[in-house]
């Protein structure tokens, strides 16, 4: 019977995070500690690292491995139309309001491999708003953005996504949006015509435009409170008056200094900027 003790200490996690900041400019020091430590331990065991020293050396000296490290310690689990009720509110309430504008600018922050970006494109298309919309989909990680820009997702997921789509108020045959290509579903090019995939690091980069809708779902949960407040201020700086901010199911604006400027859509994690 072997007793399990973690192979990396909290102090060693701090060392790795300090290295990343010093050598690569990636700042993970404001991330929730338990979560990032689990990610690091997972990769350490997945890649069968021989010792902490070897693991650290590789991250600091092998650019290819460093990229893998960043990809693996950030969480890139996502779905199309995840939380269908949320997307139904986007479809029925938020986007029709924005549809009265001559031009719609949307920022999807932390877009990962792009499943939500294509979901939003589909809704915009069905509302006849795609032609006058632009969706900036950003992530800190260039590898996931590369995947996102291909618009290809596992065929095995399509049954689930189709169910989500219908629950979110989708009106078409979901399979009309992609062509099956062996194990992959390739989404129609029209859907990505208004998507701009680009790197942006919420921790270190500034506001780059003004938007009427910002979505950032299940990203803030990985940040400590101070970093959450900082990022929410960045969103506030990037959102027009009467614009909307959408967060994940378990995230909230409530404890943030910007919350007095916002009014929540009842029962949803969507806030409207009222100042």
């Amino acid at each position, binding site marked *: *019977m*072997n*007793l*399990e*003790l*973690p192979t990396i200490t*909290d102090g060693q996690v701090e060392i790795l995070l300090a290295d990343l900041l010093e050598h690569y400019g990636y700042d993970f020091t404001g991330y*929730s*500690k*338990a*979560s990032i430590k*689990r*990610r690091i331990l997972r990769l350490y065991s997945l890649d069968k690292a021989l010792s902490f020293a070897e693991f650290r050396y590789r991250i600091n000296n092998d650019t290819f491995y460093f990229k893998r490290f960043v990809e693996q310690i950030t*969480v890139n*689990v996502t779905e199309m139309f995840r939380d269908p009720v949320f997307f139904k509110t986007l479809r029925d309430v938020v986007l029709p309001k924005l549809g009265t504008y001559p031009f719609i600018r949307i920022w999807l922050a932390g877009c990962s491999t792009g499943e939500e970006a294509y979901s939003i494109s589909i809704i915009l298309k069905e509302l006849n708003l795609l032609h006058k919309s632009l969706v900036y989909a950003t992530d800190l990680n260039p590898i996931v953005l590369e995947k996102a820009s291909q618009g290809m997702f596992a065929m095995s997921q399509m049954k689930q996504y189709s169910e989500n789509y219908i629950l979110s108020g989708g009106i078409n045959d979901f399979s009309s949006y992609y062509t099956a290509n062996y194990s992959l579903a390739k989404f129609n090019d029209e859907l990505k015509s208004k998507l701009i995939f680009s790197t942006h690091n919420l921790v270190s980069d500034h506001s780059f435009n003004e938007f009427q809708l910002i979505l950032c779902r*299940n990203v803030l*949960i*990985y940040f*400590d*409170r101070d970093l*959450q407040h900082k990022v929410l201020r960045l969103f506030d700086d990037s959102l027009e008056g009467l614009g909307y901010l959408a967060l*994940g*199911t*378990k*995230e*909230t604006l409530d404890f943030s200094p910007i919350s007095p400027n916002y009014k929540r859509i009842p029962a949803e994690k969507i806030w409207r900027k009222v100042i």
Partner: protein
Amino acid sequence: MGKCDALIIGGSAGSLDVLLKVLPLLRPDLSFPIVIVIHRKHGTDSLLPELLSGRTRLIVKEIDEKEPVLAGRVYIAPSDYHTLIEQDHTFSLDYSEKINYSRPAIDATFQTAAEVYREKLVCLLLSGSNADGVNGLKSVNGWGGIAVIQDPATAQVAYMPEQAAIHAKIDYTLGIEDMAEFINLLS
């Protein structure tokens, strides 16, 4: 007596009935928090805390991210997120890959809690049909905490506590009738 700083209860198929029997018998002034991680279908969020709060005088609530872990409360892990415990005794939520086909995974909570509360942690694994929680109990062993399982003979689905008994060092094996008294005496 201060021998317990936190109790984490994990379970899957057949565990809800156990909770419904045990919760009403708990002292309302427990000196530690109880965190409940049970597998359930995504989308049934609000029902479980409501159901359980009707059975106890302790405050029952679903966990919010970054919330402090306070004594005398019963916290329910939300569906479709992993619940982690931070060194500063707050909760973190995590939407990473499922573990043992489960999110929430009992292992994730047991393992992070083991490192935080160490020998003052008690983890109780109930009835269930997969092996989630077993690695977590091994971590609890490693950090000096107390590993407890439901007596497989009393479990609707014995697999989970059985696997724990095979792979981890179990400090106590409890029948359903003995659980409330055991928990009350930890206070």
